[in-house]
């Protein structure tokens, strides 16, 4: 009658977390489906293809037919004919064309020099016209085109999506489950048993690690198979980063759920934490685009640290010794959040 239990409390609590999670189809989608859908959509939008021809306006008049023929020759320019200089200028002003060419009879290039595409159009157009008029190049150069994997947008994006996913599942996976248990008074009921409170929180961590291995694996495998995104560094190091990142965001999730009494409240708090990092931490575009004054703050965010470290390992094949900075940032956030969360945690 009074025999020992079949499982340790930690095992039973972790198992409960896992069962709860896998019996929630919508949660499975957000963890596994969402990052894959996102990389398909973004990967398609930014897939490899030659750049679009630059639209260049030509004012109709003497010699305009010849200009159109010479501009169209290289295939990098799309000539558009305008009946008057006024119509062409209007198109230039609203950005329909990057450059307006007029043979009057001498050549006139009209463009905005502060627009990079206008300057490219000017170079391309001038080159095409000069060549067609018989210019001979004095130095012949051989061209070598580079389309190496690892330098495309999808290669930049995928490590960012991995980091983003580790953040979202850490925050929402832990936060919602704890707030739900608090609202249902399951948390209070658990504290009425001999369960150790640290075991309860640890069970959340362990179940996160379990899913973290799966979600990291799924995203990496998808990137490799669908887009050929390389992993140049070691898989062990990648696993370490995923584990440290997962633990850090679990800590953030814990702090968001530490005192919150409603799911709406928790959701708001977690959005408040997550959305700024979505934007500035270099998931979709490089964090270096922000002004220098903001850089120290952006570098101190856990998602920036995780994304930078994931990219360094996946794309540059960096080793552990170069990752001290990001790992330290993650560790400080993780340990700090756990310490504060445990202190302010509301069990009832």
């Amino acid at each position, binding site marked *: 009658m009074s025999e020992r*239990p079949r499982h340790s409390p930690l095992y039973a609590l972790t198992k*409960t977390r896992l069962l709860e999670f896998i019996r929630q189809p919508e949660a499975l989608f957000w963890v596994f489906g969402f990052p894959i859908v996102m990389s398909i959509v973004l990967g398609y939008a930014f897939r490899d293809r030659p750049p679009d021809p630059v639209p260049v306006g030509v004012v109709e008049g003497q010699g305009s037919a010849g200009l159109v023929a010479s501009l169209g020759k290289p295939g990098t320019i799309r000539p558009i004919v305008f009946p008057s200089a006024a119509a062409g200028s209007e198109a230039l002003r609203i950005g329909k064309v990057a450059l307006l060419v007029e043979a009057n009879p001498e050549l006139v290039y009209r463009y905005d020099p502060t627009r990079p595409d206008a300057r490219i159009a000017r170079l391309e157009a001038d080159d095409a016209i000069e060549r067609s008029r018989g210019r001979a190049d004095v130095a012949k150069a051989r061209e070598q085109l580079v389309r190496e994997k690892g330098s495309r947008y999808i290669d930049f994006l995928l490590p960012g999506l991995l980091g983003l996913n580790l953040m979202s599942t850490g925050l929402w996976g832990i936060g919602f489950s704890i707030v739900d248990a608090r609202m249902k008074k399951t948390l209070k009921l658990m504290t009425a048993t001999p369960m150790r409170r640290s075991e309860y929180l640890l069970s959340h961590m362990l179940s996160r690690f379990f899913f973290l291995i799966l979600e990291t694996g799924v995203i990496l495998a998808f990137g490799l198979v669908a887009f050929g995104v390389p992993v140049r560094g070691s898989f062990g190091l990648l696993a370490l980063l995923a584990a440290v990142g997962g633990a850090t965001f679990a800590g953030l999730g814990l702090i968001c759920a530490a005192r919150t009494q409603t799911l709406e409240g928790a959701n708001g708090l977690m959005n408040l934490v997550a959305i700024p990092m979505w934007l500035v931490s270099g998931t979709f575009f490089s964090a270096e685009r922000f002004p220098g004054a903001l850089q120290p703050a952006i570098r101190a965010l856990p998602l920036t640290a995780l994304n930078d470290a994931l990219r360094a390992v996946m794309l540059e094949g960096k080793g552990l010794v170069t990752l001290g900075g990001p790992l330290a940032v993650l560790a400080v956030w993780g340990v700090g959040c756990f310490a504060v969360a445990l202190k302010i945690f509301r069990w*009832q």
Partner: protein
Amino acid sequence: MEAASAPKTSPAIACRGLVKRFGEVVAVDGLDLEVTPGECFGLLGPNGAGKTTTIEILEGLMKPDAGDITVLGRHWGTHERELRARLGISLQESRFHDRLTVFETLDLFRSLYPSGRDPELLLADMSLEEKRDARVGKLSGGQRQRLSVACALAGDPEILFLDEPTTGLDPQSRRELWDLIEGFRAAGRTVLLTTHYMEEAERLCDRVAVVDHGKIIAEGTPAELVANLHAPYIVEFASEPAVTPEDIKALPGVRDCRQRDSRWFVSVATLVEALPALLARLDRTGAKLLMLSTHQATLEDVFISLTGRELRDE
């Protein structure tokens, strides 16, 4: 009842001078309590009387503002883990993970206790075998409440705490739960429960404390409390035309009377004295008797005579 006959039994639960305030509201106002090992003790009172606050303080889930508490001779401050392993607690309106099955839930709670009962046996005890693999979210109110008690029993506790165990249940589920609680007590264990159902207190409890405004206003066995009324019978009648309270109170053996709708409820010491006098009085004034019944006073009548209010009013 070995526990009760043992020499100098220390109380299973004792508290003295318990006070708990929530802001301006005094929920528990200097409450003393002693529960003997092996008895089923009931805290009886209307909603808002302070029963839940009291039981949660005794369960060590809430800290009192003042007062001294011992459970099984231990203090919560120094022996929390030991006490947790020896007590079984069922909270009012707690819910479980909807996506776990009944067995998984019991197994989880079982694993939280260092020793206890096999979950399969608990399922049988609680007549939940058929629902073994059903999701908790799909259970009826009665089944969920049985599961809650089953989880409280998972650690094979010495004391079982139940807060409003049958509130909101249908009569059938309520009787099933009563059988389970009686079975636990019959095995010599202690039960502390709160309720606002009179029948529940009368059926289950060896002793009852009537709680009102955070204080105990009467304590004893259900029979003692009723006997202390000095008016163990209630005469209920209605007449046309109605009579005045002065007329009724002038009758021999009448202790008290109150009116509800068109009916009078008269507390009397003996029926043989009061009933003929009442009938004679009505006859004399030419009033017609519309209904008449008598019953023995219950805890409900005790509560009304103590507070002047009805339990269900609040």
